[in-house]
Each structure stands twice: as C-alpha cells, then as structure tokens.
C-alpha cells in the first residue's frame, strides 16, 4: 500500500473506521514506516482529546502510555497482573533488571553472544543475520565508544559492542530504523538507564599529538530528543544529548578532498560563531564502497606550536597520549553507507593566533596521504554542511550545559538558524528543515521555562 502523510485513511485507521484489507495493509505500513506511525498517533491524540471532551462516555481510547506499553510488550511479552497504577515495560522485568550499565550489557551478551544466525528466509542473501535485532534496547543505544572506566568486564562488553558495531556498519539504515522504533515505544524512564557520559573538555595539545578521528557514531540521540520535545513538550535529559550523534543524524555531501582508495575525507576550518577566540574544525570521513570498514581510519596531526588546546564536541575519547593508542575498547567500524561528521573546537596560542594556517592541522589517512587546512574562514563563508552541523552542535551544547567559553545561548543559536535559513533556504532539504523546526521548538520551551 502506498500511503502519504496526508492520506485520510490514516485518520480512519486511528479512530477505528478502517476495516478489512485496508486495515491489514495500513497496520503493516504503521509497523514499517515510522512517519506513518507518528501520523497515526497524532490523529489518535487529537481524537482522544476531542472525544473525551465532547462525548458523555468520552474515554474510549487507550492512553498514549498504554499504547506504548502494549507495543513494548511485543518484544518480550510477559503478562503481569493488572495494576492500574503501574505499567511494567519489558526491559524492567526481573530478567533484565540491572545494577548498572555493565550488568545490563552483560545480560545482553547472553542474548547476543556474538552468534550469527543464517537468514533462512532469504535463499539469495547469504549474509549472516546478527542477533543484534533481539538485543536489549539499552545496548542498542550505547554510545559507540566506551572508555575503560565504564567497563567492568572488558571481554564480555566488547563482544556485545562488536555485534552492535557490525550492525551499524553493515545495515546502517536498518539499525537506525530499529533504534528509532524502539525509542518511540519504550517508556520515557528508560533514559535513566543510559550512561551519563562525560563530555570531552579541553585537552592540552602535546608535541606529535595524534588524534584518531571517530569513524562512527551512535544513532539514539536525535530520536530521543525528538520524543522529548515533540511528544512531551520538555527539554531532553542530558543523558540523551550526544552531540556527535545529533550531528550524524543528518546526511552530508560525500567528502572528496582526500582519498586513499579505502576512505575519503574532508576538513574545514572556521571561526567559532559564538567565540572569537576559538576555531571550529569539521572532519568528515566516509568509507568507500568495497573497502574493509575496519581499514577506515583517519587521524589528525596537530601543530602544538599553533594550537594550544582542543576538544571534540562530543563524548568519544580518541585523544592519545604521545605514541600510545586511544583508550577506547569499542571497535568503531565505519558505516558502509554513511560517513561520520565530527567537529572539534581549537584554542590557539594567543600570541600565534594569526599564524593559524596550513601547517596547524593536517588530516592523514595513513602513509603520506595528508590534507592540511587553509586559514580559517568566517562561519558564514563555510559550506552548507558545516554551518548546519555546527548549529546542531551548538544546540547540543546548550541542551547539555556544555562547558563553553564565549557566548552560546538561545539568541546566538537563533541567529545561526536565521543565517542558515537566509543563505541556504532554497536548498534546505526536508530533513534539515525538520531539524531546524525541532531546534526552534526547543528554543520555545527554553523561553517558557523559568
């Protein structure tokens, strides 16, 4: 069934007026198309409101929370006694109760176990089907890189992370869709089970500083933020505000500035719009078709004489001590279909700020393959992609009370959006328009908050 968002059958289905084959088909679409599912829920919300107010026997629909509980039970249905005041989601059942993220992931490992199941439904598709699809929702939402302090049992957790990492690499769109669906149906309280990540604050740049560029990002952040803002009208919990995930929710032009046959990459440098003392460095890395994703590696070489300190806008821990490997234990496999876009903030040596040039930062893909930056441009002069990505990063920094220098507040963010809409308006794709709308809604909520 082909159905668009403005199809009257959506409302008919939401209020029980669609029957027979049409209902069967639309139920199928609801289960497979998140946009249509959302449209049905919106119609139901309106119907519920109107019916409850206007009809004497008004309350004839389940509440949104009850619908979520029904759908959550579909993953691991356990019939409990009816409790009118509590709904127990499947992930809170005794088998999944966790004392910490390590325990939850270890339990998931019992399910995932690194096993492969042959896809028996498709004779032509010989690709093993990972059990990640049955993994606990919390595992699917784990950040891509987990540092050693979070891990209690390195061996077990890294197996689970490998399974999820492989899914993110081999079936990126399927993984994104699954995580989104799970997030839309899980209870809001699930955010309390997510790790509280330390954002990476400024780090001094030492001589011969090598920085591994993250080649993958998780996918949970933006759906959670959407759910908080759009469905609940509240600002998201800090635990779900992950800047690199927010940035990589959106798609960007394929990088072309540097390639080694396995990876292609681009870098861009500009003045930070909210802080004249720093610069933003955008790095975009994309595995090429046919490349072994484990070979998709890129690193930055930073001139410590020019750049005093830097930080990744996000949580990934990829800064190495001189000569040592990064302290991340999670294999970060690049996606076969999507690149990874990250932003660093650089703090120059004040005395040498004017010297920031092509010798300050270089991107390398190994060997002699190197790309250096030009002098930083004004923010308004950089690419559409960098303007948009940095605006999203700014939103994340505000939402998570990121330690910032300079002035980054709602007004600054509004100004950035206005510039983007004015300069890129005609070329803004639907995905980015929706992103901007969500940012505006977040700003409205902030203005209403005390």
């Amino acid at each position: 069934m082909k159905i668009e968002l403005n199809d009257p059958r959506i409302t008919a289905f939401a209020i029980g007026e669609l029957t027979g084959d049409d209902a069967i088909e639309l139920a199928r679409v609801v289960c497979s198309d998140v946009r249509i599912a959302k449209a049905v829920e919106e119609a139901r919300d309106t119907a519920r409101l109107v019916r409850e107010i206007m009809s004497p026997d008004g309350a004839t629909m389940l509440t949104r929370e009850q619908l979520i509980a029904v759908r959550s039970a579909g993953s691991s249905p356990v019939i409990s006694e009816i409790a009118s005041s509590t709904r127990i989601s499947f992930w809170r059942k005794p088998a999944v109760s966790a004392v910490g993220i390590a325990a939850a992931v270890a339990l998931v490992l019992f399910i995932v176990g690194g096993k492969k199941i042959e896809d028996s439904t498709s004779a032509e598709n010989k690709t093993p089907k990972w059990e990640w699809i049955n993994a606990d929702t919390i595992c699917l939402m784990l950040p891509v890189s987990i540092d050693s302090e979070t891990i209690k049992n390195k061996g077990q957790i890294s197996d689970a992370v490998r399974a999820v990492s492989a899914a993110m690499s081999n079936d990126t769109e399927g993984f994104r869709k699954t995580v989104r669906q799970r997030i839309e149906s899980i209870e809001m309280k699930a955010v309390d089970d997510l790790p509280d990540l330390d954002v990476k604050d400024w780090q001094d740049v030492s001589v011969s500083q090598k920085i591994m560029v993250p080649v993958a990002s998780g996918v949970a952040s933006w759906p959670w933020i959407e759910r908080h803002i759009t469905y609940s009208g509240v600002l998201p919990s800090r635990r779900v505000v992950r800047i690199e995930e927010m940035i990589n929710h959106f798609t960007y032009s394929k990088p072309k500035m540097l390639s080694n046959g396995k990876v292609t990459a681009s870098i861009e440098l500009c003045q930070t719009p909210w802080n004249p003392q720093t610069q933003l460095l955008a790095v975009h890395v994309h595995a090429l078709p046919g490349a072994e994703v484990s070979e998709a590696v890129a690193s930055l070489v930073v001139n410590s004489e020019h750049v005093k300190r830097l930080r990744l806008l996000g949580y990934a821990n990829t800064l190495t001590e001189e000569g040592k490997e990064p302290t991340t234990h999670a294999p970060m496999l690049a996606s076969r279909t999507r690149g990874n876009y990250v932003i660093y903030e650089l703090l120059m040596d004040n005395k040498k700020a004017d010297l920031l040039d092509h010798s300050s930062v270089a991107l390398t893909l190994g060997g002699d393959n190197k790309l250096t930056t030009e002098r930083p441009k004004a923010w308004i002069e950089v690419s559409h992609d960098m303007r948009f990505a940095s605006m999203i990063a700014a939103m994340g920094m505000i939402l998570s009370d990121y330690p910032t220098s300079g002035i980054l507040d709602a007004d600054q963010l509004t100004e950035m959006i206005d510039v983007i809409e004015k300069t890129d308006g005609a070329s803004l794709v639907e995905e980015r328009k929706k992103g901007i709308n969500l940012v505006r809604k977040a700003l409205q909520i902030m203005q209403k908050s005390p």
Partner: protein
Amino acid sequence: MVTSKDTEQDMIETNAELVERAISEYQSPLIGFARTIVHDTDRARDIVQDTFIRLYQQDVGKVRDGLKSWLFTVCRNRALDVLRKEKRLVLVEDETLNAKDSEISSPGEIAAKNDRVKLVKSYIARLPQNQATAITLKFEKGYSYKEISDETGLTNGNVGFLIHAGMKRLREILPDELK
C-alpha cells in the same frame, strides 16, 4: 479478510501488525464493553491494554479469523478476574450504586468540563462547516462514517476526507493547554 490465494502470501500479518489492526478497530468497543462489567473507565482501559498484550502471545494464524470473538472473550474473562480479585462480585444493586458514586463529579469539575467543551466547540466552529459537522457527528454523537454518510448524503470517502482534514486543522489551531 483476504481469501485470494494469490495475495495470501502478501497478506500474512505479523503479530505486531495484527495488534495494530486490533487496536485500531477494537479498542473503543472493548473499553466500552469492559466498562459495562467493571464500571470504571480506568480499570476498563487496563483490562483492554492487557487484552492486547495477550494478543501478542497468540499464533496469528489461529486468531485472525476470529479476532473479534477472541478479543471480546479474553476481555470479558480479564474483567471478571479483576472483579473476583478485588472481591467486587457483590450484589448487583450494590455494585451499581458504588459505580455511580465513584463517577459523580464535583460542581467545580463539572463547570471546568463544561468550559472545556465550550472552548473545544468554539475551535471546531472555526472549521469549514462541512468539516465541523462531520467531526461533531463523529465525536459528540458517536456516529460511524457510514451513519454520517447516511445523515449528510455525502459519500463515505468524502466523510473520511472531511474528518481527516478537520482533525488536522484542529491539531494546528487548538492551544497547547487543551492538548
């Protein structure tokens, strides 16, 4: 229901799809039905929630042909379980009196509800006349699309379109405090 063998493979439903369809078609009549047994709206909703959760455990092939009957049977059994558990299987007269007491609103609540009704109706009145009529018949009078079609002379398709367009517009114009 699909009977054509040619489309049988296409029309095989998963549990999730069956439950979505069941929610769409039966949540309202099931809640109404459960309420006649337990005389409490919140409990009725809980019972129906539980019924749909049980549906997930079923073999789709075995229940889809008799879905309505299955749902109402399970719903009734759950409702009676609730009554037994809470020892509310009392004399019918007492039960009816208790239910009536628990659902009486205070004068303040009644006044507040009347205000909300007036407010929502004022927003509905801003819609084009035919949309407002269709929505009022549907949600205030409880008419089905077919009944609205018979009442107004419009086709079923037109009725569906008017309600869809009207609801969409209402979503846009209703103030947040009413949502």
